[in-house]
């Protein structure tokens, strides 16, 4: 749009703005420095006509030749150091094996130090070069207001207008409206594509895999446990449902803790019918945002979630004592099977874990 478009009805300004913007920079002569826009063109034509720059803007020699000489040696030293360090890096890569913790430490140290020195050498060298060897300069470049000349702005506005008119976008509302109507479903369509990223939630979050008769396994050892084996009051054990040791989705919901109390400590709202020999089982999934509520303080009987410090009162139905959790940890009904092992009497009677819209 720049050159040959002059013979239009418009003011022929469109040719100007690039020229106005690409001004010659550097220290402006004092006389010109005052004005902002006017003298731009005159300074420009001088340099633009293929003739080389008139005046030196950067001095060729350092401000302080003696210092520069000294600095030159420093810079060279830095660069040599950097070079040696890079070679050292390659040597360390070739020479030092990994595959054990100690070897990795050695390799990491050698590679890291040589790499750091290689970069530092370049950085320091280049900095000293700029500051001590290159002649000090401070140039001033004119800054022009973002706003173009009124003619340019008018022409630009005109361009918009003309385009709109030529496209008939304004005049033909049918086109305009159908186009907009066409884009709306088009914008929604890609969202539909995301549907198959996962199954619908359904009632998945309302249930865990616990069911009547399913044994509690102590987490880690993965062995069933009898109430007699868990006799030390004050202890807490993480338990998982038998058969789901390697099922992270099941564990993410079903993980629970059992705590053994002295007789008489447990009281409502703990459901005492769901306990066995003063052993109570709660969901381990915090009702705040689902971290495992893993810390148990024996003296106070508090269960603490280490993520956001929701605190639950273990002997009293794991009611919330402090923190952002809105509900007690759900209690899992316990009983024993014929061999005396602790088993679930049913699933949790409410959804475990964090709140969600359909939870109710």
């Amino acid at each position, binding site marked *: 749009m720049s050159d040959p478009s002059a013979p239009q009805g418009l003011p022929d300004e469109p040719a100007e703005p690039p020229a106005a913007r690409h001004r010659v920079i550097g220290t402006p002569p004092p006389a010109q420095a005052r004005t902002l826009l006017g003298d731009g063109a005159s300074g420009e034509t001088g340099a633009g006509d293929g003739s080389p720059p008139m005046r030196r803007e950067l001095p060729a020699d350092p401000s302080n030749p003696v210092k520069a000489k000294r600095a030159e040696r420093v810079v060279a030293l830095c660069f040599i150091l950097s070079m040696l360090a890079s070679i050292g890096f390659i040597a360390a890569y070739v020479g030092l094996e*990994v595959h*054990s913790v100690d070897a990795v430490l050695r390799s990491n140290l050698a590679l890291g130090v040589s790499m750091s020195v290689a970069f530092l050498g370049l950085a320091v060298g280049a900095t000293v070069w700029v500051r001590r060897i290159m002649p000090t300069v401070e140039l001033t470049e004119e*800054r022009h207001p973002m706003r173009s000349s009124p003619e340019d702005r008018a022409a630009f506005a005109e361009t918009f207008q003309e385009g709109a008119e030529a496209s008939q976008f304004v005049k033909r509302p049918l086109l305009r409206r159908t186009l907009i109507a066409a884009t709306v479903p088009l914008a929604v369509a890609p969202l539909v594509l995301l549907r198959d990223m996962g199954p619908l939630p359904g009632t998945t*979050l309302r249930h865990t895999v616990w069911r009547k008769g399913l044994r509690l396994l102590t987490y880690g050892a993965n062995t069933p446990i009898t109430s007699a084996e868990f006799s030390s009051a004050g202890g807490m054990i993480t338990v998982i449902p038998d058969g789901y040791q390697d099922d992270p989705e099941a564990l*993410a919901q079903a993980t629970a803790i059992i705590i053994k109390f002295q007789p008489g400590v447990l009281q409502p709202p703990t459901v005492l019918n769901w306990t066995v020999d003063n052993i109570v089982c709660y969901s381990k999934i915090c009702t705040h*945002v689902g*971290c495992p509520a893993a810390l148990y303080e024996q003296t106070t009987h508090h269960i603490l979630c280490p993520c*956001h410090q929701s605190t639950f009162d273990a002997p009293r139905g794991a009611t919330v004592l402090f923190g952002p959790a809105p509900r007690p940890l759900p209690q899992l009904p316990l009983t024993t099977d014929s061999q005396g092992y602790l088993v679930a009497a049913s699933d949790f009677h409410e959804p475990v874990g*964090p709140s969600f*819209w359909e939870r109710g």
Partner: protein
Amino acid sequence: MSIDRALREIGGELDDRFHAARGFRVLFRKIFPDHWSFLLGEIALYSFIILLLTGTFLTLFFQPSMTEVVYHGSYTHLDGVKMSQAYASTLNISFDVRGGLLMRQIHHWAADLFMAAIFAHMLRIFFTGAYRKPRETNWLIGIVLLTLGMLEGLFGYSLPDDLLSGTGLRITEGVLLSVPVVGTYLTFFLFGGPFPGNDIIPRLYVIHVLLIPALMLALITAHLFFMFHQKHTQMPGKGRTNTNVVGAPTYPYFMAKTGAFFFFTFAALALAGTFAQINPIWLYGPYTPVGISAGSQPDFYMGFLEGTLRMFPSWTWDLAGHTVPWNVLIPALVPLGLLFTGAALWPMLERWITGDKSEHHLNDRPRNAPTRTAIGLAAITFYGVFWLEGANDVIADHLDISLYVTTEIARYAIFIAPVVAYIVTKRICLGLQRKDLHLLEHGVETGIIRQLPSGEFVEQTRPLTEEEVAALDVRRPPALPAGASAREQEVPPPGLRGGLGRARLRLNKVVTETVPVEEHGDGYGHGNGHGNGHPAAERAAVASSRGEGVPDDADGSAGHGGAPAGS
């Protein structure tokens, strides 16, 4: 000699091909002003480049798969442990790939430095007013980049599928579940079913290595282009005005300096990666929803959200069979939303309040915009309280106070501390303005006492140098909304009537509050007990450089309604 000739010819060769003579010359001579705070953005940029470099290396060895494997690698402590392939390959990178650990650690440190540099850069921009017209677009791009950076970091450190980051994902799941109506659907679609599923790591991986970096790269390019096109702002100083840029040219000065700075950044990160262990996932173990480690802290830029979740009370609604978990929803969205939305809207708001629609290329010293600085400090304090609360267990442990007390304190502090910060900052700024004014009027105290022949003792002062004056004497009378009067008793112009107009005027008074700038300013801003026996001799010369005055309330002179504005 041959280098010389090559240098002479290279321009011609380039011009033959790219019509480059004029454009490239302008480019070479483009001026970049100097100030230490301008390096903050460069740190962010170079950290990003280093992230791309080290990240590319890591992708060569990382396997974003949740397939379960049994580990039999070099880290014998985990021999025979079941883990995801992602975790196993991260162990492999750390212990069986030469330089792998170094690259991992540099990558992680670079991410932290990237975020820290963005925060610092953003604060610099805010406090010096560099976001003002015409740079609002770049300010907005910056906020988007900050948001993307947070997500990129969260997704990145989640990839190794270790116990710590897995807990972070679990929290993410809990937060997503809290979204009303569609929360469970979002969660199931993101995780490909119930948490944790088998899809989340591969999905986060492609978002982390492709989608977000591509977006960020595009935005950074635009960010730099705008900065380049609009020319860099500069701090006030001798010879620096709103219509020029003073500094060193790109070629060779800025090129060399910024190149050196890239290597400094890389060297610092390499040193950190060598000597400062970060994210030792082999100590955390592979993720299992059953386990967790105490003192689980996210990377620092996510600590804010951790703090909001910890601090917020347990409010939940159960309505007609549906649950609205305000206890998660509000802390996850509102505080950060307030900060980011506030930051995004601030340039517009300030423009509206002050009525200042002119371009600004000369930065403010923070003290010279007391209200803005005070708002900034209030925001930092707001952020800081949440951020500290995100580590309240560590704080409680180290200070030996109750965990719950730290949270209770934070619950009050989140409302009180920003207000205190605002007030204190504003007073400090105004005090510093008075100090500047004092310096301009009386010069620097030399500590020399001279006895006059009459026997009188006088303290000798040194007048400021031109450079010092140029740096100090930059305050302008605040712009007012068009036609707004500084006087109270007049009928306001149309734009300032009605409730909104009155609010605008009131805000204007607050935002533009400053120590009065007067041509012969003796006596103004001196309520603090300075005797003013010294005539403001140097001041007169100084003041002559100031042309602008308070915009006159030409149209506000319609008469004197006795009642306050707008009634």
